[in-house]
């Protein structure tokens, strides 16, 4: 009978025993999944919710240009300005439908829009819906563009939201504002930009926005510290479990040596067993962690962000990591056991 088969049997036949060994790994992995998952989820939520604030300068047509929209050429110049990054275009313009003024809003981030019914695509504010009698499925014609309302927003305003690309197209490829982050001091960049590109004015964000940005960054740092603690606890738990389970089998390893197995064979099978325990423990831990994440998502109303909270990379990393870590953790005691004096190992009770 070969030692690998025996290692496998060890796990299969002594289920309670294996379960207890794996418990440490399961708890560790579940902790990592839940904490990292919630952190990742919360980070995505915060990012989504605050992305409209995450800019350093707003560039819009200058008063002297006489228009609230800037043409595509000017926009391109701004966008290729070397001191800017994370550039976002925004197009908004006024229209009159059946005598009612509405604002067409180009939308980059649909998640920020709170919907009453329907889905993103062409969304009208409740106010507009009421005045014009729109429901999901109503036909709307703006600038010769036939569209169908896909959702109603909670907001009681006068906006109609469409994809930014569509809004820009309807406005003859013009944009009303560009937001961007800057390399270097925003004030200096803004001044330079105004001097270099004609027809635009650049404003730096308000103090308030800067404060919110700081707070968001701090809370994300805090969340990742908590996740790191979870990670550390998980890793230690996996290593500790493996160390104990190999240590307490010193005598059995002694028997194997006495009946003529080589150090290499004993090491190999011990690490094999450690790897299997690490793998199985991680799979169970991920399942339990996923249940925890699901419960947390429900409690926090984060269900929209489920895929961000349980990303595939986390699952794969955790399973591979736990397997590798278990093997590494088995390495030290397995080495120690294989180097151990047989007589002493056999005396071990």
């Amino acid at each position, binding site marked *: *009978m070969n030692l690998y088969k*025996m290692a496998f*049997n*060890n796990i299969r*036949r*002594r289920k309670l025993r294996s379960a207890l060994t794996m418990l440490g790994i399961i708890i560790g992995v579940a902790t990592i999944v839940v904490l990292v998952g919630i952190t990742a989820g919360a980070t995505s939520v915060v990012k989504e919710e605050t992305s409209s604030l995450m800019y350093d300068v707003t560039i819009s047509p200058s008063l002297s240009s006489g228009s609230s929209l800037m043409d595509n050429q000017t926009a391109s110049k701004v966008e290729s300005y070397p001191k800017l990054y994370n550039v976002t275009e925004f197009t908004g313009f006024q229209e009159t439908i059946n005598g009612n003024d509405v604002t067409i809003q180009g939308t980059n981030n649909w998640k920020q829009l709170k919907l009453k019914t329907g889905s993103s695509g062409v969304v009208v504010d409740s106010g507009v819906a009421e005045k014009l009698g729109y429901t999901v499925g109503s036909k709307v014609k703006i600038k010769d563009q036939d569209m169908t309302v896909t959702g109603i927003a909670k907001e009681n305003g006068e906006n109609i939201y469409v994809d930014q690309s569509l809004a820009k197209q309807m406005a003859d490829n013009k944009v009303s504002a560009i937001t961007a982050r800057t390399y270097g001091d925003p004030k200096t960049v803004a001044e330079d930009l105004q001097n270099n590109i004609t027809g635009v004015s650049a404003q730096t964000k308000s103090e308030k926005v800067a404060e919110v940005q700081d707070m968001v960054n701090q809370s994300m740092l805090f969340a990742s510290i908590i996740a790191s603690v979870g990670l550390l606890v998980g890793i230690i738990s996996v290593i500790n479990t493996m160390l104990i389970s190999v240590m307490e089998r010193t*005598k*059995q390893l002694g*028997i*194997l*040596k*006495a*009946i*003529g*197995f*080589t*150090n*290499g064979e004993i090491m190999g099978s011990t690490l094999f067993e450690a790897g299997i325990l690490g793998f199985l423990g991680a799979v169970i831990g991920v399942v339990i962690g996923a249940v925890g994440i699901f419960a947390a998502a429900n409690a926090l109303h984060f269900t929209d962000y489920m895929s961000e909270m349980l990303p595939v990379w986390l699952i794969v990393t955790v399973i591979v990591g736990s397997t590798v870590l278990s093997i590494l953790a088995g390495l030290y005691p397995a080495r120690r056991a294989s180097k151990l*004096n*047989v*007589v002493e190992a*056999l005396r071990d009770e």
Partner: protein
Amino acid sequence: MSNLIEFNDVWKTYKMGEEEVNALAGLDLTLKEGSFTAVMGPSGSGKSTFLHIAGILDMPTEGTFRIKGKDTSRLSSKEQAHLRRNEIGFVFQRFNLMPQLTALENVMLPMIDEDLEKAKKLMDRMGLAGKYNKRPGQLSGGEQQRVVISRALINDPSIVLADEPTGELDSKNADAIMQILQDLNKKDGVTIVVVTHNRESAEFADAIIEMKDGKIIS
């Protein structure tokens, strides 16, 4: 018959803090192939230490030990393991079986060419017919020791070393185990060394060696 094992002025010294204990103190001994030897002596006289060195489970502090003409201290740990697996069968006082494996699996554990029929035949011969699938915990002491002996014999070793194999058995079971060892020696020509405290058990052997203070006194 040629020499199977040779002890040449073998010392085994244990350091206990400041104090040094000579478990073996200049042991000289040769055993021929096909011999059946019993080793007796008071507790602490070095019998187990002697057997451990003979089984390549331990190394002499000084002096040389040869098996089949090979100086064990010159072998790599892999070569030592191969000798243990192919040439030596070790039987311990404590039964030392893998608790999670069945009797049959324990016997087959060190088997080099897996052969179920051979293993079963061997167990039948040891009086273990029908016990193949029992775990060690479900077997009596005498039965467990038969499993250990079966395991020691599975690769047809040239020598079987037994350290008080009957120490935890009643006299009926002890005699049965000694009878098995005698059988192996007479019928199969296996060289056997048995350490025992029991004069009656020792009488099964062809020669009795007395040890005291790490040396052979007769």
